[in-house]
């Protein structure tokens, strides 16, 4: 198959060809498509280039070993990102010994929160958004990336984090609130 033709294949078709032939060229295609995105998520969550490089390799090893188990129920990208988020969250909990990775674990959750409209976050200038994302807890960062960067549904997020859909809605609401209040704190002017 020529390069042009191969590039037109969907992820699911590439996986199908890989599972039939076990040819590494098909896995290479998947790696080329997703390694940059996986790395970007790792760096957002782990905040360390070397660590993110190693994490990307570990995540692709997991993908390689489990590719036959990919059922196709969700999009391949969602499956890849869920492995990535789980890997990073697990790493933060284990190695960094941060048990409280969501703002609601740290702060008083008693008071009612005002709704933050999506556009208030989506329109923050990129440089500032990066700084805001750096100061909020990693769990909040993860749910915001899943929702706004990967367009994952509440159901997909709930499967990744193994929480109920209503718990995820609350986590997203709190994460949005945390991001907005951090933005206000960082950029008081």
């Amino acid at each position: 198959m020529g390069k042009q033709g191969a590039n037109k294949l969907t992820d699911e078709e590439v996986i199908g060809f890989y599972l039939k032939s076990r040819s590494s060229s098909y896995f290479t295609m998947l790696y080329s498509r997703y390694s940059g995105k996986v790395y970007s998520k790792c760096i957002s969550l782990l905040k360390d280039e070397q660590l993110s490089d190693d994490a990307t390799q570990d995540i692709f090893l997991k993908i390689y070993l489990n590719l036959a188990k990919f059922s196709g129920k969700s999009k391949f990208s969602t499956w890849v990102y869920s492995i990535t988020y789980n890997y990073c969250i697990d790493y933060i909990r284990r190695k960094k010994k941060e048990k409280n990775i969501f703002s609601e674990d740290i702060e008083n959750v008693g008071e009612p929160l005002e709704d933050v409209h999506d556009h208030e976050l989506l329109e923050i200038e990129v440089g500032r958004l990066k700084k805001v994302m750096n100061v909020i807890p990693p769990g909040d960062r993860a749910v915001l990336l899943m929702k706004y960067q990967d367009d994952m549904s509440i159901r997909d997020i709930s499967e990744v984090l193994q929480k109920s859909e209503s718990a995820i809605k609350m986590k997203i609401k709190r994460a949005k609130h945390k991001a907005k209040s951090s933005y206000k704190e960082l950029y008081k002017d």
Partner: protein
Amino acid sequence: MSGDLRNNFKRLSEEDELEPRDEKEIQGTISFISSISKVIELYLPGFFQLMISISGGGNDKSPKPGTPNNNSGLAKRDNEHSPSEPPK
């Protein structure tokens, strides 16, 4: 906040994304992944089996292929007492 309509979370991802690597580097990574996974697939189950046997958790009662079944009459005649049974 700027008036840009684009979702800036997606821009954030593009900024952090790795520069496309050259084909040699990708091939190197893939062959590393495939050799590590081969090692895992080939040797890890055997390693776990060995650890189970060492810890005494193995199923000794299951007949090994090519060895006579201990429950057969012949086996009983040849070996009437199990080693733990006191001699009559």
